[in-house]
């Protein structure tokens, strides 16, 4: 387990160096997928390596000339990395521009300043019901497939796509297993480590990641830990694709709380639910996207309340509260949050919102909020 964890930490501590090395080792093209929901299976089936784009840990410099300060951290950080040449090992990008407005500027900025060999803009529908929507989602994926075939000059057969889906589904099953094992004994891994495990899956070739996860799981089964009594369990909900991401989790744990599960991206949202293997694989990918990817403010859904989903997760884990992690300048989340909050108030659920921002470090103030939250739950 230690060995597997060491590799995971190595991959996630310097994703730039890792992905660059990956390219050289495998002699394959690297395609950066902007979060979230890009069906990586298609890129995998095309014989390239899909990698989920991450936010850097540095201050935005040249990026200021390209994006306003009131765009979210990952937007600014990604553009900054790209224009500074820090991503020069990437051969192409996929942008799903319908999940948020800010993503709409990437393709143009990249065409001008990065000139990727491959670039695809996806318009996966933001709504989920009806034949027109499903048909369009399928059309989009067909067009994505064709663009990949045009780029590589090789056909993506139904069988090869199914094989890729199997590999991805296995990865999802293994990550689920990691979560399951940890739920039974949360002290076995720090929340930071769990996120690093999920993040490693976003960066590594899935076959390799699957082997690593198997090793990790075997170790997790064997390992025994002392369980902490009287700790308050909490579920973080929201987004972590920013600076400070893991520090926030450390802070929560340092204050004596336990995070047995999460509704986060990076986190359980990445691997939730599998792609069906019966029938047409493109349709199966569309159906996972439309019906099985977890609820999130970037989606137009209101017959299900995100708050209910979070409460269910909380109750399933015997948790006592919810910590919303909201990224500054994430308009979809900001718009949804008041309704999420009022749902919590109505249900009498303890909930607190922590806002995180790229470059602005207010850990001390965040600590006060979280500590007050513990005091409220604990009844000080």
């Amino acid at each position, binding site marked *: 387990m230690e060995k597997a964890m060491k590799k995971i930490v190595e991959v996630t501590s310097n994703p730039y160096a890792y992905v660059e090395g990956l390219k050289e080792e495998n002699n394959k093209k690297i395609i950066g997928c902007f979060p979230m929901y890009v069906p990586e299976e298609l890129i995998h089936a095309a014989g390239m390596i899909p990698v989920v784009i991450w936010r850097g840990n540095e201050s935005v410099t040249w990026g200021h*000339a*390209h*994006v*306003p300060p*009131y*765009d979210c951290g990952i937007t600014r950080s990604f553009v900054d990395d790209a224009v500074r040449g820090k991503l020069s090992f990437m051969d192409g990008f996929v942008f799903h*521009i*319908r*999940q*948020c*407005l*800010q993503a*709409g*500027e990437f*393709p*143009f*900025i990249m065409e*001008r300043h990065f000139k990727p060999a491959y670039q695809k*803009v996806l*318009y996966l*529908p*933001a*709504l989920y019901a*009806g*034949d*027109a*929507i499903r*048909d*369009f989602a399928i*059309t989009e994926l067909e*067009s994505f497939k064709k663009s990949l075939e045009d780029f590589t000059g090789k056909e993506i057969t139904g069988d090869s796509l199914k094989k890729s889906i199997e590999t991805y589904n296995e990865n999802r099953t293994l990550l689920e297993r990691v979560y399951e094992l940890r739920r039974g004994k949360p002290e076995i891994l720090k929340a930071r480590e769990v996120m690093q495990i999920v993040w490693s899956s976003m960066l590594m070739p899935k076959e390799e990641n699957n082997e690593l996860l198997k090793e990790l799981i075997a170790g997790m089964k064997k390992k025994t830990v002392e369980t902490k009594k009287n700790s308050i369990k909490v579920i973080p909900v929201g987004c972590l694709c920013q600076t400070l991401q893991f520090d926030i989790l450390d802070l929560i744990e340092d204050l004596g709380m336990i995070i047995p599960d999460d509704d986060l991206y990076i986190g359980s949202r990445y691997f939730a639910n599998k792609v069906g293997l019966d029938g047409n694989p493109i349709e199966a990918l569309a159906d996972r996207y439309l019906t099985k990817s977890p609820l999130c*403010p*970037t989606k*137009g*859904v*209101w017959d299900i*309340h995100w708050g209910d989903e979070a409460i269910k997760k909380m109750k399933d884990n015997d948790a006592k509260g919810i910590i919303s992690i909201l990224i*500054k*300048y994430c*308009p*979809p989340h*900001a*718009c*949804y*949050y*008041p*309704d999420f*909050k*009022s749902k919590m108030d109505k249900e009498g659920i303890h909930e607190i919102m922590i806002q995180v921002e790229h470059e602005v470090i207010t850990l001390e103030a965040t600590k006060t909020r979280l500590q007050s939250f513990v005091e409220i739950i604990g009844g000080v």
Partner: protein
Amino acid sequence: MEIKYKVNRLQTTNEIRPLVDKHWADLRTAKERGEKVAWASGPSFIFAYAMGMKCHFMAGYSAYCGGIGAGEEVLKVAELAGDLPESCSYHRLHMGMGEAVARGIPINPQAILPMPDLMVAGRLCPEMSHYAEGLNRRFGVRVLPIDLPGPYSKDDMPRIREFVYRQFKEVVIPTFEEVCGKPFDYDRMSEILRILKEVALLRNKCWEFFKDKPSRWTLWDYGVSIAPVFYLMGNPAGITYYEKLLKELQERREKDIPAVAPDGEKYRLYWDGWLPWAFLGKFMRKFIPNGAVVLCGRYPWEFFPHPELIDPEHPVESWADLYYGMESHLTYSFSPKGTIDLIGELIEDYSIDGLVMFSSKTCRVMNLAQPEVIDVLDKKYGVPGVIVEGDMIDSAMISDAQIETRLQALFEMIDGRRKRK
């Protein structure tokens, strides 16, 4: 001697207010008369109009609230209700209005609208569906979502056009039929388009007067005249209005009266992004004393700049084509590439000296890649541009000093280039 610039106000534009007021008053009282009410965002309100419903439109209502000075107090209620100041101010405005009614917080009664029988949420951006979702979650409003992707490149348009057209036919029209309990009125939709076409053709003639040097009117004059090609669509009063406006502009040309006294403008500007409805006067006072006049803009040019393409005989198809057809492609101007094409045309047609790129801090739909757009256009046309930060209606997002500095910089850049020539 320094020239004292002043704006020459048009007479005809005074006649818009009663039309606009009547529209919103009718909407406010519709339920009392037993009429059905719809709300809409994106190009979907025409379907409500075709069914004889009174309909609110997201940006139109926000413009109206800005105009009557109600924005600030309504936004305050939204904040009280927990809405975050960084979220879309149009979203907050609608939530604030609903919350004010629900919580019994007094606001300007003119800003209060009845909750709709149907909210058509055309999702150009996530926020547009969010405010519909919020209305559903908070007030139980029935919501009809439709997905309206903005195309990044022209190649993507045919398949998006098909998608949107299918939603109109398969979802929007049947839902309106159900809500109203009668078949969809295609004839009325055709009639609305016929009137729209006539109004927009007249409006295009008025646009010609922006080409005059000096210009005969300002974008602000046109800004207040948008309603007839927008939410007053189908109202024949729009024809009368634009006929009158055209006549007044012709008279100005004959008598050589410029929009900016005494002798016309020193700088001819383009305006990008939303019109800042609550601050039109504020900006006007920053332009005119410098001899600057804004003549054209991306948002005001969204309202059917090619009326010749409107085909009233095929209303639904034509409606989809206006937004996504290869000829008209209104939604393409949201893409940086489309923006550059459009501004390029406007620079040439209207002899533009500089670009004011208004960047809204809470709505990014028109902010996309603005720094790139400036750079591309400067290299191609030698026309400088500046970004001015602000918001459509939220004054907390506007800094006077910053705006003044940036505009001053723009004027200096234009002066500098003129000297070099």
